[in-house]
């Protein structure tokens, strides 16, 4: 019992390590009618689910925070500040950034 649990944990570690190596996290954003739409995805096209997204102003003030949904999307009303830096964090050291001008 103990051994099989250990084995399972080991297998999980291998799996996660592989994922961490192979998948880069990306965030893309565009503006449509004063709404900023964000899409967060891994290189192979899988959505980043439940990723933490932070929106910073040019002087690095945190303006907003949100979470990507099941499709990797999150949207918010366009703030007055320009440009914006969007940062996605998805655990395991996964981090992506996007400059929205």
């Amino acid at each position, binding site marked *: 019992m103990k051994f099989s649990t250990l084995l399972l944990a080991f297998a999980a570690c291998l799996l996660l390590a592989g994922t961490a190596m192979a998948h880069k996290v990306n965030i*893309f954003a*565009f503006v449509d009618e004063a709404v900023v739409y964000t*899409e967060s*995805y891994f*290189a*192979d*096209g899988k959505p980043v689910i439940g990723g933490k997204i932070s929106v910073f102003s040019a002087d690095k003030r945190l303006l907003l925070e949100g979470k990507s949904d099941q499709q990797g999307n999150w949207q918010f009303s366009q703030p007055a500040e320009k440009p914006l830096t969007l940062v996605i964090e998805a655990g395991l050291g996964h981090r*992506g950034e996007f*400059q929205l*001008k």
Partner: protein
Amino acid sequence: MRCLSVVFGLLLFFSSVSFAHFGAVIPSTDIVPTPDAAALQLEIKFMHPMELHYMEMAKPKEFGVVTRGGKIDLLDSLQETKRECIDPKQTFTYWLSDYKIKRPGDHTFYVIPQPYWEPAEDLFIVHYTKVTVAAMGLEDGWDQPVGLETEIVPLSRPYGLWTGNLFSGQVMLHGKPVPYAEIEVEYLNETAEIGEFVKPPADPFITQVIKSDGNGVFHYAMPRAGWWGFSALSEADWQLEHDGEKKGVEIGAVFWVHTRDMD
């Protein structure tokens, strides 16, 4: 001036030989990392890439891009352009397109040219030509066919390739692999970033020739940084008329990839 003398040397060298035709679609970059770099210019030509000979190119029948599963018609974006070729000293037509990438994802550009009459071979030539540009980290779609009569479907991701990497692909005709297909490989000998022209020491170095396996799968390791063209030729099961006579049509599946030195 230095460039001219190199070209002249090349001309002397190549004056007696004739080589493979290649359809070409060459984008200004194969990787768009951010929206700042999203404005592409594509050159669409019909040429002998290693010797830098251009053939007169009529406006393509189709030009478009496939991205995120959708096809966008870009035929209206084509601008006719002329370039002088030194041997023979004539002006040749090729085509330019400006295209701005809007969304992340692989963008596979494809060209279907008008049939080109080649009297020396007594046939028409139609090269279905493709290139893939990667955008903003979403690497999906490069392994998918466009659905052309004949095409090369990459088995190696066709961007972010180092010099010396193996490029693998599968030759398809009507959606089926072509067993033991012959593939011609040429280097585009005008790569500005290299700064000098390649001088092949003997004719067989100009066009590399490889064959696929029984499943249409081929491999080639690219020895230099720049653009490389892969062309698999088949005979069409249809004919065209020239001066009232039915003539055969050579259809080519052409794919271009770019390599960079690891330094």
